[in-house]
């Protein structure tokens, strides 16, 4: 596997190469993202072409490799800073670069790929970016950029507070775990704070394995310091001095960015034995996963960190009492930790004021699958699924009608059009028999075969089951067989009864969400799209 590219932060470059051209016009800043989503469609070649073209024309430009704005259908999204306003062009491929220069894009001129000022693009303008406030705007490794946009203010506040005060602020903010289980973060932290132990750990679950989700990856690649800051605040809150970031091996760019950011933060005194001369100590390291989906389950992740097979632990004890290496451990998702600095900076009330019901603050929704405008949309809880699919997503990419949307990853339910008016918050989704999970939406058009998707859910569970509990390990394989029989029309109504009974066993008898939630996509597909499973009348009779 190739070592991913780590772009040097501009601060470091500037410190060794003082800019002697300050008296003349400063070079025009051009932003070309370094997020994997951009690299995967040729952003490096675009950046190179822009540099080459500028050199050939004798123009002075400063190419900044920023994170992604999250308008992923427009990647590679190139931005030009014109008098402090950034103008967007995209999707740019290398062969477009000459034409962009000809049209005068360095002056923000019109072009077929131009979208005007980036911040005014409705997709972005309608969002409420708390956690992703800096992503796409800054150079991810620049400490100057981070500090200039309120970075480390939460940490500085936390350093002046007691652990109890920090935990109280997080509790009051209403922040709930963003990994999917939505457990109140403050309560988890309080348990660890009160657990008597001389050694405690902070663990970040960055094993973002759900299909249709990429918010963790975008944040780690686009604003790693906010995650480092959030984990450091957690350490100060509960009295932990060491943390681990468990990142999946499928995210090499995120791992490289985090490792570089940790080294820079340590060098600048934000991590280490004496954080900002406070006498407090906290440090971090990145650990790489190895392709196991179930390691996204918190206890399996802890097993994996300990160097074992990623097999789920029975609870209790909770990780907050006996977690990593048997010590009290705060384990939270990337977005949870990254949401903490703004709470400590702006206050619990500021965060809590967004959202609806018991779902406070914002959630970065991820629009994926068959959508015209896929990308990241951070909004307060309560936006409807329909708005996300059509107002933001622009409908299907294929031009055919949308038919089903899976919300919350591979263990989330498939929702039919009749349910798309649901407001997106934890309780509303649960009311429909679904889950909001990590906020990923995967849209399918009318060419989808929902029996095939139900079979896939069981097959995926069979591949990824850790094998510890029987309902998940064996139930998933039996589930594939039963779906096959239903589709083949072998004793269809009896097999459907059997599938429901099997799902009931898996829901109630599995140790973790892998086995207990695989029935969500299976049963929702069966209930809402019975025609795909064969004779609709038989299905409804069952």
């Amino acid at each position, binding site marked *: 596997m190739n*070592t991913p590219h780590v772009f040097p932060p501009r601060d470091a470059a500037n410190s060794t190469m003082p800019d002697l051209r300050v008296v003349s016009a400063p070079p025009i800043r051009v932003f070309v993202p370094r997020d994997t989503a951009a690299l995967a*469609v040729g952003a*490096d070649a675009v950046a190179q072409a822009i540099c080459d073209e500028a050199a050939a024309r004798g123009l002075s430009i400063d190419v900044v490799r920023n994170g992604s704005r999250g308008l992923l259908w427009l990647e590679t999204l190139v931005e030009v800073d014109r008098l402090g306003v950034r103008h967007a062009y995209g999707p740019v491929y290398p062969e477009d670069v000459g034409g962009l220069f000809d049209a005068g894009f360095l002056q923000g001129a019109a072009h077929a790929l131009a979208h005007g000022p980036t911040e005014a693009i409705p997709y972005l303008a309608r969002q409420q970016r708390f956690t992703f406030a800096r992503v796409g705007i800054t150079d991810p490794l620049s400490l100057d950029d981070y500090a200039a946009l309120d970075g480390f203010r939460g940490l500085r506040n936390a350093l002046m507070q007691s652990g109890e005060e920090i935990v109280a602020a997080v509790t009051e903010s209403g922040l709930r775990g963003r990994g999917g289980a939505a457990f109140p973060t403050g309560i988890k932290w309080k348990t660890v704070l009160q657990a008597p132990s001389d050694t405690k750990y902070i663990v970040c679950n960055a094993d973002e394995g759900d299909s249709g989700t990429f918010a963790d990856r975008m944040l780690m690649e686009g604003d790693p310091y906010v995650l480092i800051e959030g984990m450091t605040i957690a350490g100060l809150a509960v009295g932990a001095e060491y943390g681990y970031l468990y990142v999946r091996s499928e995210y090499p760019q995120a791992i490289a960015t985090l490792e570089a950011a940790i080294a820079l933060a340590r060098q600048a005194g934000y991590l280490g034995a004496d954080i900002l001369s406070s006498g407090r100590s906290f440090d971090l390291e990145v650990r790489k996963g*190895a392709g196991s989906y179930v390691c996204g389950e918190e206890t399996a992740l802890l097993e994996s960190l*300990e160097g074992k097979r*990623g097999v789920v632990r029975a609870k209790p004890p909770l990780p907050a009492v006996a977690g990593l290496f048997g010590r009290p451990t705060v384990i939270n998702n990337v977005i949870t930790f990254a949401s903490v600095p703004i709470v400590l900076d702006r206050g619990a009330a500021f965060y809590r004021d967004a959202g609806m019901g018991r779902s406070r603050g914002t959630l970065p929704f991820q629009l994926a*699958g068959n959508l015209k405008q896929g990308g990241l949309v951070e909004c307060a809880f309560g936006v409807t699924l329909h708005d996300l699919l059509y107002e933001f997503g622009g409908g299907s990419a294929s031009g055919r009608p949308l038919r089903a949307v899976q919300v919350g990853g591979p263990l989330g339910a498939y929702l039919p059009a009749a349910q798309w008016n649901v407001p997106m918050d934890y309780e509303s989704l649960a009311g429909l028999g679904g889950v909001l999970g990590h906020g*990923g939406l995967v849209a399918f058009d009318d060419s989808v075969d929902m029996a095939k998707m139900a079979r896939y859910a069981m097959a995926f569970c069979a591949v990824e089951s850790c094998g510890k509990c029987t309902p998940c390990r064996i139930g998933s394989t039996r589930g594939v067989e039963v779906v096959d029989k239903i589709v083949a029309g072998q004793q269809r109504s009896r097999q459907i009864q059997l599938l429901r009974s099997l799902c009931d066993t898996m829901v109630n008898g599995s140790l973790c969400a892998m086995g207990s939630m695989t029935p969500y996509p299976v049963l929702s597909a069966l209930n809402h799209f019975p025609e795909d499973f064969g004779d609709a009348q038989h299905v409804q009779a069952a």
Partner: protein
Amino acid sequence: MRSDAMPDPVPAFTRAATVAAKPPAKPAGKLATTPPDGVDACTAALIASHAARPGALLPLLHAIQDALGFIAPESVGAIAQALNLSRAEVHGVITYYPHFRTAVPARHTLEVCRAESCQAMGGDALADHIRQRLGCEFHGAHATRAVGLEAVYCLGLCAQSPAIAIDGIAHARMTPARIDRLLDPLLAESKDASSIVQGSGDAGHLLQASHREQEAP
């Protein structure tokens, strides 16, 4: 405050620089003891440098596979001894995680995402095309062993499905035509053995070819 070594700045934007910046495969420094039978010096050195870390096994296995391309079954005993584990425990961990390999891989690894979002955007048809092109199933390899085919469950590029990765470098918005442009040079390598270069799976330069022309089916 610790002053850890900073990563070297990489001057260019190209992926070629990424490959060039790859750290040397074998760590420097000599071993104090002769490695046990069946364990090469590189593995032994990595065992020595990782053994004291808490939860050392996964980082050690990653380090060995990154350096050698796979984890030789012969090294299980030495790993177990150094970490005070049973051979069964080490074997169990290696075989539990899909990322770890115990045999020499094909020269290049093509990972094709098989998850829901890619299925929603024609991923199954793309996978069929790839299987046919390589003449192998998943977990298999092209007859020349130029390219091995693996399934991956999500590369985090779900808004730009379908996605694949070649030697860990991700490519999104794939079509059969685009995947052929990426595979052609890798498969051509095997016809001219002298041109085989480790790490040449970086096919990013191909993306400089016109994209919009490829949009037509």
